[in-house]
C-alpha cells in the first residue's frame, strides 16, 4: 500500500502492456485480446451488455442523442436495396480495437494508442478533444463528452471529464485484475452467451477456436483496419 514509485516498478507487471517494445516472439506469446459477437445468440431487445457497460465504466447517458456516449450500442442495419431479399439486422457495435487503428494514427497528441495486448485506449489526461479520431474511426465507435457526466455509479473507476473523446477499452482495468469485461460477464449472466472474449494468440481459447472455425466476419475487412471484434451471423 505504502510502496513508493520504485516499489511500484518492482511489482508484478503485466507482460501484455509493459513499456518495452514487443519482440517478434512476444507478439506470438503475449496476449492479444479479441471478441467474438455471436449475433445468432444475441437477443432482440436485451440491453444487459449495454447496461453493465454503463454501470462499470460510468458511461454518460443524458437522454439526448446529441450528447449520449455509447461504448457498446445496438444498431439496425437495413439493406440498401429493398428487393435484395436481405432482412433487417440488429447488430451490436463497439470499438473494434483495430490492429491498424486509424484513430491512433491521426491523434495529434498520441492520446489514443494501442497497448501491447492490442487494446486501443485513450489517455484522457492527454486528450485535447480535437475529435480527429472520431472523424478517422470508420466504425463511429468514438464519442465526445459534450457535457459533464453527473452520474457516477462505479466510484472505483474514473469517469470522463467534459471535452474528451472516449471509446470502449475492453474494460482494461478489469482485464488487468484477471477479470472479463463487464459486457461479456453480463451476457453470460443473462444466459445468452453471445459475447465471447479471450486471447487471440492462445490457440486453445474459445475466441481463437471460433475464429479458426471460419464462420466469423469482421466489419468492412476491405478497409484494412484489421479489427479484433469478430461477428458470427453478420
Amino acid at each position, binding site marked *: 500500500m505504502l510502496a513508493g514509485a520504485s516499489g511500484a*516498478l518492482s511489482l508484478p507487471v*503485466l507482460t501484455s502492456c509493459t513499456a518495452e517494445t514487443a519482440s517478434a516472439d512476444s507478439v506470438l506469446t503475449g496476449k492479444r485480446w479479441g471478441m467474438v459477437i455471436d449475433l445468432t445468440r444475441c437477443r432482440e431487445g436485451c440491453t444487459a451488455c449495454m447496461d453493465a457497460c454503463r454501470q462499470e465504466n460510468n458511461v454518460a447517458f443524458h437522454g439526448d442523442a446529441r450528447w449520449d456516449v455509447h461504448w457498446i450500442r445496438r444498431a439496425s442495419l437495413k439493406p440498401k436495396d429493398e428487393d435484395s431479399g436481405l432482412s433487417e439486422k440488429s447488430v451490436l457495435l463497439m470499438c473494434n480495437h483495430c490492429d491498424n487503428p486509424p484513430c491512433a494514427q491521426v491523434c495529434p497528441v498520441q492520446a489514443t494508442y494501442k497497448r501491447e495486448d492490442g487494446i486501443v485506449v485513450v489517455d484522457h489526461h492527454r486528450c485535447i478533444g480535437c475529435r480527429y479520431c472520431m472523424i478517422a474511426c470508420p466504425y463511429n465507435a468514438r464519442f465526445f463528452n459534450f457535457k459533464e457526466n453527473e452520474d*457516477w455509479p462505479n466510484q472505483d473507476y474514473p469517469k470522463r471529464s467534459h471535452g474528451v473523446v472516449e471509446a470502449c477499452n475492453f474494460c482494461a482495468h478489469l482485464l488487468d485484475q484477471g477479470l472479463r469485461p463487464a459486457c461479456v460477464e453480463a451476457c453470460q449472466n443473462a444466459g445468452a452467451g453471445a459475447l465471447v472474449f479471450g486471447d487471440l494468440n492462445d490457440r486453445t481459447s474459445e475466441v481463437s477456436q471460433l475464429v479458426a472455425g471460419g464462420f466469423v466476419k469482421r466489419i468492412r475487412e476491405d478497409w484494412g483496419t484489421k479489427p479484433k471484434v469478430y461477428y458470427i451471423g453478420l
Partner: protein
Amino acid sequence: MKRSSVLTEKNRIKWATFFTILILLPVGLSVAGFALSRGQAAEVFLEAPDPRWESCYRDAEYMRFHHMDLLKEIRDEVVRYGIKGGITLAGCGDCHTNRDQFCDRCHEAASVRLDCFGCHYYPERALDRELLRVGMIVQATQDGR
C-alpha cells in the same frame, strides 16, 4: 488668476504632506499588519492525517512541494505503461479523508486549480454538500468548478 493663487508656499507644504501620507498609508498598514500577525501562532493549515498510518509515500516536505510531480509520474506509469499497484489517488484518500481540508484549502489559497476530481473519485466536498443542502447549487459536482 485664481488658479495660480492656489499653490502658495503654505498650500504647497500642505499638499505635499497630504500626498506623502496617501502614498505611505498602504505601506504602513501592511507593515503594521505583518508586525501584529508575527506574534500569533501559525494556523493549522492542513488536516491531521489518520493516525492509523505512520508515514506517507514520501516525507512531508517532499509531498508539500512535489506531490504534483509524483502524481504525474505515477499517472504516466499507470496509464501509458500499465505499471499498477503503487500510489493511487484513492490511496491518498485513505489517510487524507477530507478533501476540503486537504486539497482544496491549499489549492484555493494558492489559486491553483486542480483537475483531478472531475474524473477521479475523492470524497465529496463538505462545502458542496452544504450548498446542495441549502439549495444554492442544483447538483453537487465533484470537481468543484
